[in-house]
């Protein structure tokens, strides 16, 4: 795959608005299933800059969670990295996460890059009080679990709008889903990582709780500097929180750009289709349409563009060759041969 356009050349680092903290370069991941190899991530490349929030959007089976796990090397045993690099940089130093030793990897995880998983209940140890979970994490990273860590925990819990005195004494089951999710976010920030990866941070939460988590994330970003990658099927979460949005389909990024640009001028038919499939609450009734057909099979991949059987702009070339990302306007990339046509059918 030609991935040149998304890459930032070393010369640009430090020159642009913010330097790159994470660079994923032509990453391919697959895992074994009974029917064959699932090509879950196919040639993904993107950059994450310091302080930036990137949303990885896609439906179930688009490879977004596998990609997230791949970034911190938490893939299940059945998975393997076919090729590619995940380059992490800090203070001018670069290292490939995929070739870190076991020990360095332990330091990388959480200290440099924390991940908050989908199910907040299962991510916390049910028999430990919240204060002990903080202490545990601190000790695992050569910090004392006592005074300093507890002070930091209190501060972070206050930042996520929880009452530290009550929450630190509680067991996970004594907290509501939204509180647990916020505890996890605070725990993720404990070692002051550069990057936080959130997998479906608000999916199982009620509306008002979801709002609280979103507001907490937003205010945190104002107060603490970290880069955020969040993985979600929910377009509205991306609209709320992201600076940049990358749409995933069939294991690859098909569009990547500024959040306003993506929502207002999508240049990939799949992104366009998703936007027109989601109703808004505010205002009058709008016309919606679904994307015809069904999600792609990641085991037996079809030739050409993986979206072509569902695409309204399909041409012969799409059936034969798979398009790669090209820059369609400044900082906006689309993997579609017919991107100039996208946006015409809905006439908005």
């Amino acid at each position: 795959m030609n991935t040149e356009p998304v890459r930032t050349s070393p010369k640009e680092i430090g020159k642009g608005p913010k330097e790159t903290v994470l660079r994923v370069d032509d990453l391919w991941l697959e895992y074994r299933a009974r029917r064959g190899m699932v090509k879950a991530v196919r040639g993904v490349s993107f950059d994450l800059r310091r302080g930036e929030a990137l949303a990885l959007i896609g439906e179930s089976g688009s490879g977004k969670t596998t990609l997230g796990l791949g970034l911190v090397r938490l893939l299940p045993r059945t998975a393997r990295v076919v090729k590619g690099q995940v380059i992490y940089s800090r203070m001018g130093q670069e290292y490939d996460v995929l070739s870190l030793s076991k020990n360095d990897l332990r330091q990388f995880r959480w200290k440099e890059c924390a991940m908050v998983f989908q199910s907040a209940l299962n991510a916390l140890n049910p028999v430990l009080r919240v204060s002990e979970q903080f202490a545990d994490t601190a000790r695992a990273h050569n910090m004392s679990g006592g005074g300093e860590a507890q002070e930091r925990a209190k501060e972070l819990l206050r930042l996520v709008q929880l009452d530290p005195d009550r929450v630190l004494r509680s067991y996970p089951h004594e907290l509501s889903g939204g509180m647990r999710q916020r505890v996890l976010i605070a725990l993720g920030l404990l070692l002051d990582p550069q990057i936080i990866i959130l997998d479906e941070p608000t999916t199982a939460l009620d509306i008002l709780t979801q709002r609280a988590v979103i507001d907490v994330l937003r205010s945190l970003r104002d107060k603490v500097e970290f880069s955020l990658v969040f993985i979600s099927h929910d377009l509205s979460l991306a609209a709320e929180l992201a600076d940049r949005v990358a749409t995933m389909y069939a294991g690859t990024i098909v569009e990547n750009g500024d959040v306003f640009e993506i929502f207002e001028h999508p240049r990939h038919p799949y992104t366009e289709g998703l936007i027109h499939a989601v109703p808004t609450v505010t205002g009058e009734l709008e016309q919606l349409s679904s994307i015809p057909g069904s999600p792609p099979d990641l085991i037996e991949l079809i030739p050409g563009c993986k979206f072509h059987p569902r695409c309204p702009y399909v041409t012969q070339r799409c059936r034969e060759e798979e398009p790669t990302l090209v820059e369609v306007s400044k900082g906006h990339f689309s993997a579609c041969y017919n991107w100039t046509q996208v946006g015409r059918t809905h006439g908005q």
Partner: protein
Amino acid sequence: MDNKPTLIELQQIGRSFRVGNKSVQAVDGISFTINDGEILCLVGESGCGKTTTGKMIAGLLQPTSGKMLYRGQDLEKIKQQDYRSYRLAVQIVHQDPYASLNPAHTIQDILSAPLLRHNLARNREAARDRARELLQIVDLTPPDDLLDKFPHQLSGGQRQRVSVARALTVNPSFIVADEAVSMVDVSIRVSLLNMLTNLKNTLGVTFLFITHDLALAKYFAWEGRIAVMYLGRLVEIAPTPQLINHSRHPYTQALLAAIPEADPRLTRSKQRVQLRSLDIPSLLNLPSGCTFHPRCPRFEAGLCDKLSPTLVDVGNGTQVACHVVARETGAK
């Protein structure tokens, strides 16, 4: 809407469950009517009692208090035969299409069973023909490709269509759809909703659509009504455009303001409603008076924490259970 006959009427329906040695009031004295051919959406957060209400309406759960009328007849006193016709007329489509279809049966078996059981098809041949028709109605074409498949061979969206087809086997006049599209991918959700809307238009099916997603409720029930539940009680019920654009109850307003929108400009400029507390009270220990009072931005001490408000008419087809709103509109 007014001249349509009433299909279902709930009068102060309640349902409690035993949890350990305590009793939990999952649904507490709710009343509303559903007319023939109408779409009513029941909206609320998890634990508000919307599914329990749906199950009671579908006859899968018995209310522990109150009265339910089906076409004017009290379901408690109804004759065996009439009860059977009510159970046939009201069908439910469940949330999880992975759990609601028997994995060991083919699609044909799943659809034929009710047809044969209720003598709606003379023999297996006729049942297969009818199953084919039903699959066409739910836009699963060509039906012959699917009849001999097992549920695991279908996608989530296809399974949910099979669930709808199964509900349609007995020619119901009323379908309770409990979060019927929540587990389906976004890109195909709308086509499923449109298919349901078609059933309403072509077969005249009445819908109770239960969802936690107000945007979906708005899209599906634009010509119907939305009822909002909170902790087992009905707090507001109104025609959909009215509820979406001019909601009256502080809880509905908070919900609408909190929903993130799939439009960055819109969602980042939305007016927020600041709640007094983020904690959701436990059903085991409900607040006194109006159960929303510990969180309500319009809370008035001495009123809201003392008296439980009842639903009152505030005009424009809207009913609201809020002391403050009722006083403002002069409703009794």
